[in-house]
């Protein structure tokens, strides 16, 4: 997370959320140009969960994530220019254009892997935690996943192993209640998702995922335990995605969720909620926010310009990187 010196730390959280929101809205706005030729899974609405969780980490901690990875990449400090270049399929992209929007890696920032197969990155994150333990480091691995990924068997296998070995791993579930268009109630029995931790003797918490401070607090507590060798935790943050599962649009007209439900969540929209909180505590005002926005806007403009003007990968490089050159 980017924090300026002398500023209130919560302002940094707000900036990070605002920045993710603005970047994703810019992607949404320009998607119709048909120049970002890959799927995009926006996290608009889930910024409090994303930023709350990543802000509890330090740079040497690692994150693995999913198809819905833009937010984690940015909140953990991933390079914006290289992200946009990746989405535009450019050689300067964080994966050289090989990955697209579902593969945002930034080793410097500690974003190790995003993977679009549901559940697939979970054990990879556990392996990172195992490597930390083997190297006797006190870094932690945070494994970001959605509610549907808790239905994949590998999630449970991973919890069991992490709990058994007391690994410094954190399973962070953003429960947005949907797997594509299918509501949680059609996929899981009624009980708190965090109950799954009980089956594996693991600490857990269920938090309001639209309250950035609550998320940060819960994750920070889990991180502290993990660093101290006390083992992994499962944290479930309840939140909501406002746009379509994949793509730039709103799709509530399709009728897969009720207007009442959407309205309920609009009232809890995380950015506005945090803005009001910060305003009431005099941490932010309209002028400051306008300044933040202008700075972010400039950054976004720069990143799009960079990406759009960046050269495409050379077709001649198609066959490179299939096998590693042995060191």
């Amino acid at each position: 997370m980017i924090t300026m010196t002398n500023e209130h730390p919560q302002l940094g959280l707000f900036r990070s959320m605002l920045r993710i929101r603005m970047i994703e809205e810019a992607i949404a706005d320009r998607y119709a140009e048909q120049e970002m030729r890959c799927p995009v899974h926006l996290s608009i609405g889930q910024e409090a969960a994303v930023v709350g969780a990543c802000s509890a980490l330090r740079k040497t901690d690692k994150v693995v994530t999913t198809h819905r990875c833009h937010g984690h990449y940015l909140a953990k400090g991933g390079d914006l220019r290289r992200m946009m270049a990746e989405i535009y399929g450019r050689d300067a992209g964080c994966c050289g254009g090989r990955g697209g929007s579902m593969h945002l890696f930034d080793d410097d920032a500690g974003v190790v892997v995003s993977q679009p197969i549901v559940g697939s990155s979970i054990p990879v994150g556990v392996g990172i935690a195992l490597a930390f333990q083997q190297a006797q480091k006190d870094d932690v691995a945070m494994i970001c996943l959605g509610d549907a990924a808790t239905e994949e068997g590998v999630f449970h296998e991973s919890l069991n192993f992490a709990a058994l070995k007391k690994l410094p791993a954190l399973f962070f579930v953003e429960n947005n209640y949907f797997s594509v268009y299918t509501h949680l109630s059609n996929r899981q029995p009624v009980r708190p998702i965090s109950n799954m931790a009980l089956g594996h003797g693991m600490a857990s918490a269920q938090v309001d995922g639209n309250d950035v401070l609550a998320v940060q607090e819960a994750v920070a507590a889990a991180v502290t335990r993990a660093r101290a060798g006390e083992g992994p935790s499962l944290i479930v943050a309840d939140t909501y995605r406002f746009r379509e599962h994949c793509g730039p649009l709103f799709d509530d007209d399709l009728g897969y969720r009720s207007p009442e439900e959407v309205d309920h969540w609009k009232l809890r929209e995380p950015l506005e909620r945090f803005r009001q909180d910060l305003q009431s505590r005099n941490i932010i005002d309209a002028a400051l926010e306008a300044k933040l926005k202008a700075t972010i806007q400039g950054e976004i403009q720069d990143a799009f310009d960079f990406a759009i003007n960046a050269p495409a990968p050379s077709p001649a490089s198609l066959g490179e990187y299939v096998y590693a050159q042995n060191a």
Partner: protein
Amino acid sequence: MPKTRKLQAAQALREAFEQAMAADPRVFMVGLGASDPKGIFGTTSGLQEKFGAARVIDPPCSESALTGIAIGAALMGQRPILSHQRVEFSLLALEQIIDNAAKMHYVSRGQHRVPVVIRMIIGRGWGQGAQHAQSLEVLYSHIPGLKVVMPVTPADHKGMMLAAIADDSPVIFLEHRWCHYTEGEVPVDPVPASLDGPEKLADGEDITVVATSFMVLEAMQAVSAAAKYGVKADFFDLRVLRPLNLAAILASVKRTGRLLFIDTGWTTYGIGAEVVAQATEQAFDSLRAAPRRLGLPEMPVPASPVLAKSYYVTAADIVDTMLQMANPTADRQTARAELEAIRDRLPFDVPHPAFKGPF
């Protein structure tokens, strides 16, 4: 002649499901997205409304268990249809497919039957990337006990699906997403198609061309174009990868002496390897030239459109190879250019003019 009308393949599939479910209460469907507004690329739209949530199950994200559940229900006499929106999701269930579905009939000495249909959608395009655009038909075709099919035409999508549902063995039904957009005449009535072997699409004496799935559509353009350069192809849609019945293709190779195979998946250890090997073993004395194969090169597909464009085999590549094999003095440059021009009317990563992303 049965009554027909034009449908897209996706609609033809939907009709097969609707007719099969209406005719037989044992048929039910399990598929992520089966009941959602997009209805698995339109192939399942409206079915849950019609047959209820107990027969059109939009399940949790648990591919391995769902496969076992389908197998268990099939053992009890039900006829489940399982759908995967991407073939990759089925990898999570491979143990169930290979060890249970494929082997229960054999291991039980015929006492058990596993009449399961498992749809797996393969595809390409629009930056899907390495884990959302594989083909992988070989993984299933190698396994005795499975039937493995790849329909191309709308009529086959309907007819082969009906046959698969009616079949008492497990059937892997590999649909290419881009074939979903093809249009063609489809019988109104529920008439199962044969699952016995390939279908011949053109007659010729100069070369035998065989392709699978979406590559049949590319090859079809090449076959027409090659005719203008004096090369007439005996042209087959392989359709059924297992059990593999090559009788008609071998007879053709014995006549033409030349074989070109076009794979939808990777070339190496691909479907074409087996077809070329059998053709060589069984039609050796008739071969006039080395058989050839085209297919995906030896790497995952990159997301970037610029890279992906050089990844896929096109009609232009096919006509070029056909001419090299059967009329090496023909003007291959022009033949290529004509087909490339046709292709370039649409961006290469778009299956249909209506397509606008995002997946």
